[in-house]
């Protein structure tokens, strides 16, 4: 790599960016002035509101109080006592009174407790927690009642000749062992990482769009690419500029925040004996940790932005990515989250947790190294993703001449149906899968809630199988190609079976390892429900379960995933891309709030089924595998003797079985036939020199 060229590109990009008001605003104005200013104003407004509230007495209606209590309450200047008619729920709800004290729940007049009579009165304070004044009135009323209670108790004890502390055997007092600085560091660690990462994201957002999509839109990229500079140097220079800007934004924000906090301007911090300071050594470490993160965001944003044709398109494409990158960092604000090596490897979250620990003064070495190291790996991948785009002409100039139909939706539908393709385009397949996933999530859940097991059957056939078949029949597609309806050879089927038998125990092991590594636990109710679902007590039940859990998904889910989605991705003849993407979507489809741990094992089986369908070109092979995989669950759970052979009660797989599994898997893969090319396979556009040369040779031969 020619560093001189990289620096030339970098210097130019920085110069241009620093002349862009929008970026400067995001980088400098917002972090250094706006946020601290807003926080100070917010605090002042809060204090002002509280003071205003405190100046006015709380309007509290009182019912059932004896004359002594009523007089006591009336003497309290923080209270304005309202007549008993307003001491009702309805009156408080209608805000006629801010709160109400009701003494004696059932018969107030007869159960009044006095200093002389032993006993306990029930006193209720009615208030509306959704109304600030009512909340405050509640606090004032409760305080007054506590004071009255203490006074009554003192009188009773005195009447019996007992000392005032007779009814107070323990005097409990809290005493924090943390210094004001430590408390401040803990508080900083909760929110500063989120803010810091957010600012890095925001700082990189506009420059990435401007330097990639913006340059395309203005036509300067075309000029730049005719200069004798390799694409790698251009990407490196641009990416370094975006990363530097992102980091500068974060640094400006960090500095501004710390200076604001340390200035002591916040009264609440002084009142709570909290001192917000961050040692410079920690700030430096945080900045070092920010480097791979800034690299990751910059490369990711740049890679996406350069694939967009305009500034606006890039903005639309990046906004969800920015959101998706932001949400995981909220994990750092949750209580009870441990910074372990597994969590450290999660993109963005790892570094955020490391920042939290660093600011709290106790970052453990191993997870910190894992967070740092994995982020560097992710950043490298993102950089590769960005660099690849710069070398691709379809990315730089779009897909060439557009043949998109124009006119109303009827014309467009007609043109779509008349299209020449035999299998859906990947974009069509993704839209289809997204639509049925949404439908399945809403309508399927409702069906299952209403009809139980039969609901599952209805949703699989009605919401997966029927739409998949309908798409193929309505669209301009060849059903045999789109659904891979090809009779597999006996060797292919045997291979598929062996791959399934080898893959299933490995899937169990994967699930187990995942649970151990992440210290996850399957929710008990879910385990119970799942076990109940797949446990057969008699033969008819066993057959029904096989139909429900094994046969149905084998048809319905395969039609969608190894059918429509897989075959559309396979258009481009790239095996691993097709297999991996389908498996990821298949795994994601099986996700739900409480079953995140099913993702990896499901995706694993998805990978195996993908390989088999790729090689055999037959959906029947993957249907067999799907049936075996799900049917195995029914068999193993229903037959305790078999279950004991395969899995322990805690779900740990039999390791002998796991050790033997790769043999079956390897034998199955060996048995699978080679993928046979079909005459109408779509040949991908040559995007490498070799491919271009090959195309040239073919032309010459003609």
């Amino acid at each position: 790599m020619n560093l001189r060229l990289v620096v030339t590109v970098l210097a130019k990009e920085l110069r241009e960016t620093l002349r862009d008001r929008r970026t400067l605003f995001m980088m400098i104005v917002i972090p250094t002035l706006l946020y601290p200013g807003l926080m100070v104003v917010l605090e002042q407004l809060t204090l002002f509101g509280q003071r205003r509230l405190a100046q006015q007495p709380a309007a509290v209606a009182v019912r059932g109080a004896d004359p002594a209590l009523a007089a006591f309450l009336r003497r309290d200047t923080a209270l304005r006592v309202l007549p008993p008619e307003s001491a009702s729920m309805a009156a408080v709800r209608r805000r006629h009174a801010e709160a109400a004290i009701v003494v004696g729940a059932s018969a107030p007049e007869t159960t009044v407790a006095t200093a002389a009579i032993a006993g306990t009165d029930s006193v209720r304070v009615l208030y509306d927690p959704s109304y600030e004044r009512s909340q405050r009135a509640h606090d004032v009323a409760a305080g007054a009642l506590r004071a009255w209670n203490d006074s009554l108790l003192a009188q009773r004890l005195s009447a019996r000749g007992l000392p005032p502390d007779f009814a107070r055997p323990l005097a409990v007092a809290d005493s924090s062992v943390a210094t004001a600085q430590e408390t401040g560091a803990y508080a900083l660690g909760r929110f500063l990482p989120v803010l810091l990462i957010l600012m890095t994201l925001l700082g990189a957002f506009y420059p990435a769009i401007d330097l990639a999509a913006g340059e395309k839109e203005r036509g300067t990229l075309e000029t730049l690419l005719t200069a004798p500079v390799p694409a790698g140097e251009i990407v490196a220079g641009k990416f370094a500029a975006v990363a530097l800007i992102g980091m500068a934004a974060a640094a400006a924000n960090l500095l501004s925040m710390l200076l604001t906090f340390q200035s002591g301007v916040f009264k609440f911090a002084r009142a709570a004996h909290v001192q917000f300071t961050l040692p410079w050594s920690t700030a430096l470490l945080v900045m070092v940790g920010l480097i791979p993160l800034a690299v990751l965001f910059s490369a990711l944003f740049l890679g996406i932005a350069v694939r967009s044709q305009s500034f606006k398109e890039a903005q639309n494409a990046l906004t969800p990515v920015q959101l998706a990158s932001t949400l995981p960092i909220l994990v750092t604000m949750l209580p009870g989250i441990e910074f372990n090596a597994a969590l450290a490897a999660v993109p963005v979250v790892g570094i955020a947790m490391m920042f939290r620990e660093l600011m709290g003064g106790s970052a453990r070495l191993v997870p910190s190294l894992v967070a740092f190291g994995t982020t560097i790996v992710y950043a490298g991948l993102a950089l590769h993703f960005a660099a690849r785009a710069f070398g691709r002409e379809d990315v730089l100039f779009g897909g060439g001449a557009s043949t998109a139909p124009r006119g109303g939706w009827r014309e467009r539908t007609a043109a779509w149906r008349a299209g020449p393709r035999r299998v859906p385009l990947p974009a069509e397949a993704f839209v289809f899968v997204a639509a049925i996933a949404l439908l399945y999530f809403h309508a399927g859940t409702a069906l299952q809630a209403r009809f139980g097991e039969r609901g599952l059957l209805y949703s699989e056939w009605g919401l997966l199988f029927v739409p998949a078949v309908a798409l193929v029949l309505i669209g301009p597609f060849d059903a045999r190609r789109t659904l891979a309806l090809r009779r597999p050879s006996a060797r292919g089927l045997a291979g598929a079976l062996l791959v399934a038998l080898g893959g299933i125990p490995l899937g169990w092991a994967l699930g187990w390892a995942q649970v151990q590594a992440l210290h996850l636990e399957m929710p008990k109710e879910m385990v119970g429900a799942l076990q109940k679902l797949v446990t057969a007590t008699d033969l008819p039940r066993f057959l029904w379960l096989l139909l429900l859990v094994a046969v149905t998904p084998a048809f319905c889910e395969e039609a969608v995933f190894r059918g429509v989605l897989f075959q559309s991705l396979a258009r481009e003849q790239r095996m691993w891309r097709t297999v991996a993407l389908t498996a990821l979507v298949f795994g994601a489809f099986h996700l739900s709030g409480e079953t995140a741990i099913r993702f990896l094992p499901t995706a694993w089986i998805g990978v195996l089924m993908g390989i088999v369908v790729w090689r055999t070109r037959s959906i029947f092979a993957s249907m067999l595998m799907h049936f075996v995989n799900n049917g195995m669950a029914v068999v193993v759970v229903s037959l305790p003797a078999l279950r004991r052979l395969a899995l322990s009660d805690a779900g740990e797989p039999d390791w002998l079985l796991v050790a033997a599994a790769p043999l079956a898997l390897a034998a199955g893969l060996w048995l699978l036939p080679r993928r046979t090319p079909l005459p109408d396979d779509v040949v991908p556009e040559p995007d490498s020199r070799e491919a271009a040369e090959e195309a040239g040779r073919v032309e010459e031969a003609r």
Partner: protein
Amino acid sequence: MIEFDRLSKRYGDLLAVRELSLTVRGGEVYALLGANGAGKTTALRCLATLLRPTSGAARIAGFDAAREPLEVRRRLGFLAASMGLYQRLTARELLRYFARLNGMDDDAAAPRVEEMVEAFGLGEFADRLCGKLSTGQRQRVSIARAVVHDPPALVLDEPTLGLDVLSSESIFRFIADARGRGRAVIFSTHQMSEVELLADRVGIIAGGRLVAEGTADDIVARTGEHNLARAFLRIVREAA
């Protein structure tokens, strides 16, 4: 100097350029005429190393645009219709940037930039941001940018698009001057008058195919029409 050798370029199902073969010698100006979507820009982009040919080759000074793109770019001055100026750089900064990208160090770049400023009359506005320049001024900066490294071949894609008569005139002078200095120039256009004024030879492209080639007079005579515009229409209709 410039050579297209049976170059084809396909976008999906669309064959944008078919078996295009032509050559432009040093000191020659070649005009590529064609309707919108005929394949002119695609062909020039293949030559400028921006697109990879599906088959065949485009060469400058014997270097293949697909196999040795950096060598081709060193010998190429490319001017796109969009001009390609950075709005937040001054004209002088822009020229210095491209001089450095073309391998000059600061010592070599500084006098060359001043030479360009002088040659193209940029002095008045050389330190103004490109975004603040008039269209004519931008066009002059853009030409200076394309030749800052003194390339032997010039590729101009619709260089007078959207320009007024005065600004177009500066382009004409530039092209004539380049021919005088032995540069090979290929440009695409829709303007017949430009072709008659500047081009030594003309290639008419229709449906991605070179359907006629020769001097403007040859082409007019061959079709039996009175002028190049009518000859062009006739050739394009016959090719359709």
